């Protein structure tokens, strides 16, 4: 069937549905308008670039998390894996003397491997993903400290390039865009991506339909590890060094971004575009509160309330739609 056989849809009327399905986006727009009115510092070039850089780390982590949550799991280890990957990359360059580009690729491989171990423990070892990745959260952070002896390690220039600029545009933003497109392509177009929705929606039905559920789960966690590694390298690139305590607690931001973006923690639902909006909501709120001179203590309170509010609205929306 080609597009010509589709009935001509009344595009103008669908805005209600669009709003209902993109609550986070509406919230983001309202938030930006409010900040635009509240402070002249918000809508300035440097501030927007700053937001872009800030969001790149959170969003890249959260893209990986989106795969996991869509497939019905959770990954608490992404912050630690990000740090471990960056630190391993730094070690490969500074201590093992590998070429910079190889150290960069090596960091990504470490992340993917750590993720794959999560997946193996979950799919074959039958550990709930919460437990498997909680263990990895601790193991990966520990290894990071072991490798670095608790001190920062200088990273390769190739890694620093990730934190630099491409002409007027900061590299993290370029990476963010590429990562978003890649993740979205993977989730929407490929067999493995579509399978993730089936596994998250009903793993047994997916299995009985012949989908290789275990292999899919391993891939999903490996991807989450890979994206975490990329986020870790982005962070390291900005500082020209891998920090032992980098990205600590970022897993919670990543989960929050995915959930604000409309994914369901019970699996089967979620979009990369939603996650990107979710990450933007988090970062813009922090940025705005900074501009308005709200202390970081209060910021945490606000962020927590926003997460509860966003998910609460979502739950309510689904409930009214179903009845």
């Amino acid at each position, binding site marked *: 069937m*080609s597009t010509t056989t589709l009935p001509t849809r009344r595009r103008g009327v669908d805005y209600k549905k669009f709003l209902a399905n993109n609550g986070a986006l509406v919230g983001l727009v309202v938030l930006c308008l409010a900040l635009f009115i509240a402070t002249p510092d918000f809508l300035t070039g440097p501030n927007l670039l700053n937001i872009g850089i800030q969001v790149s780390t959170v969003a890249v982590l959260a893209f990986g998390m989106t795969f996991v949550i869509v497939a019905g799991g959770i990954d608490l280890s992404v912050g630690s894996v990000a740090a471990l990957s960056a630190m391993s990359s730094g070690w490969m360059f500074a201590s093992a003397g590998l070429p910079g580009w190889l150290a960069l690729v090596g960091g990504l491989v470490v992340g993917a491997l750590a993720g794959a171990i999560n997946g193996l423990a979950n799919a074959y070892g039958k550990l709930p993903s919460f437990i498997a990745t909680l263990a990895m959260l601790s193991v990966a952070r520990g290894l990071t400290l072991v490798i670095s002896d608790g001190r920062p390690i200088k990273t390769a220039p190739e890694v620093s390039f990730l934190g630099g600029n491409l002409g007027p545009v900061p590299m993290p933003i370029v990476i963010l865009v590429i990562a978003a497109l890649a993740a979205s392509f993977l989730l929407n177009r490929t*067999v493995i*991506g579509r399978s993730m929705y089936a596994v998250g*929606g*009903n793993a047994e039905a997916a*299995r*009985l339909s012949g*989908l290789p559920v275990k292999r899919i789960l391993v891939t999903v966690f490996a991807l989450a590890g890979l994206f975490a590694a990329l986020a870790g390298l982005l962070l390291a690139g900005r500082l020209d060094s891998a920090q032992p305590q980098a990205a600590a607690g970022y897993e919670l931001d990543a989960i929050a971004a995915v959930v604000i973006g409309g994914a369901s923690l019970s699996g089967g639902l979620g979009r990369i575009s939603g996650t990107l909006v979710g990450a933007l909501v988090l970062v813009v709120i922090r940025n705005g509160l900074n501009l308005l001179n709200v202390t970081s203590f209060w910021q945490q309170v606000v962020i927590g309330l926003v997460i509860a509010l966003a998910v609460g609205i979502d739950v309510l929306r689904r409930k009214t739609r179903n009845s």
Partner: protein
Amino acid sequence: MTQQPLLTLQNVGKVFGSVTVINDVTVSVYPGQVQVLLGENGAGKSTLIKMMAGVYQPDSGHIVVDGNTVTLPNTRAAEALGIATIHQELNLVPSMSIAENVMLGRMPTKHGLVDRRALRQQARAALALIGLDIDVDALVGDLGIARQQLVEIAKALSINARILILDEPTAALTRHETENLFAVMADLRQRGVGMLFISHHLDEIAEVGDTVTVLRDGEFIGEVPASTSEDELVKLMVGRGIEDQFPRVSENLSQAVEVLTVENLTSTGLFSNISFTVKAGEVLGIAGLVGAGRTELIRAIAGADRYTSGTVAVRGQNLPKGDIKAAIAAGIGHVPEDRKGQGLVLDASVNNNLGYATLASTAKLGLVDFAGQRRRATEVAKRLRIRMHTIDQPIGALSGGNQQKAVFGRWIIAASTVLLLDEPTRGVDVGAKVEIYELMNTITAAGGAILMVSSELPEILGMSDRILVMRDGRLAGELSSAEATQDAVMTLAARDVDEKHEQR
């Protein structure tokens, strides 16, 4: 009737959005009588019982209890008037004991602590109401469905329920368990409890009911005595006569080749030494009691579970153990027992659900063939007459019959030639059942082979060309369709069944 009804829904109506689900329906429950509510899925039965239970409030008409008009703003109000519902999904906590479940929410206390002795005593008294003598300290999760149901009924009675709403209580029960339940119902009738009974098994109506209220598309169609013939009931319910409930058209199998060959299949503790063949064009039925190992057998053949020894071959090719993908590649399609839990991804669209088995095989370079998948899904949905708004609708919103057709459709798209059906019409209404049977005819006419497990004897007898009977994990016998009767099957299936078996 001169007797005053316990409960009457008087000319009630209910509208959701712009859809009228119930229009001007009147139904009464009398003391000591079983009122049967009959209708296809979507006829409005559940909406009606939810009105009685205080979940929904009628938009028009009113509710009368003991001659007084009442409003039931919530379930608590309904309970206070003695109205209790036994749902299909039981409201018990599996990890707590029977006593705790029976007394849940009103545990006897002493000095602020649970009084264990009184708890057991009161629970035992409640269970005695229906003549159930079991260890009240056993965990509810360790009981079979049938006993769990009885525990729930005892719980309702102990809260002084006078009106029991039984929503498809027999759907998951064996014949023997059903008879037990009916005995309890007969006893309750003696004691003046009014019951509202819902069942898809027409043969149970005359057995247990007094009067039948028939609904169709939310409208009151008529009230008839429970002794009305099944054909007449079907006609009232569907709105047209269904000439043949089991329209099996058998193929000539004299020249047919063996498609599925199972030899000495054994899975320790589940089934042992099972051997049989299914020919192209044949429907082989497997009968037996729940727990006889039928589902386990079918899952092993499908590759869903590993087995201990033996072989499964399709067209002479042995299949590897526990490999669903290889089974599918060999032409096997598995329609599992639990449609919602194992067959479908309920939140996903009809389109996606139809395409899971062919997602990988039709992909190019790992990219999904969206256009092709959609085209095939649209074609099959049309062919199987799956009733839906659009193919992008979540499949969970469809009726049971249409959901089941979609599971079949998945294997038709995958060009499966050996279909393993496990309770293919469970929770499917009469009209859709016949459509599924006709679909089975189409499949066998095209040379497909069907292996069907079913707990509904009329279905096994009506649709199988040959019947295997399983008992305690073994083949107890084989019957041709000519020699098979309910009695013959049950004699093979239930020989030596003792209480231990019943308790599973």
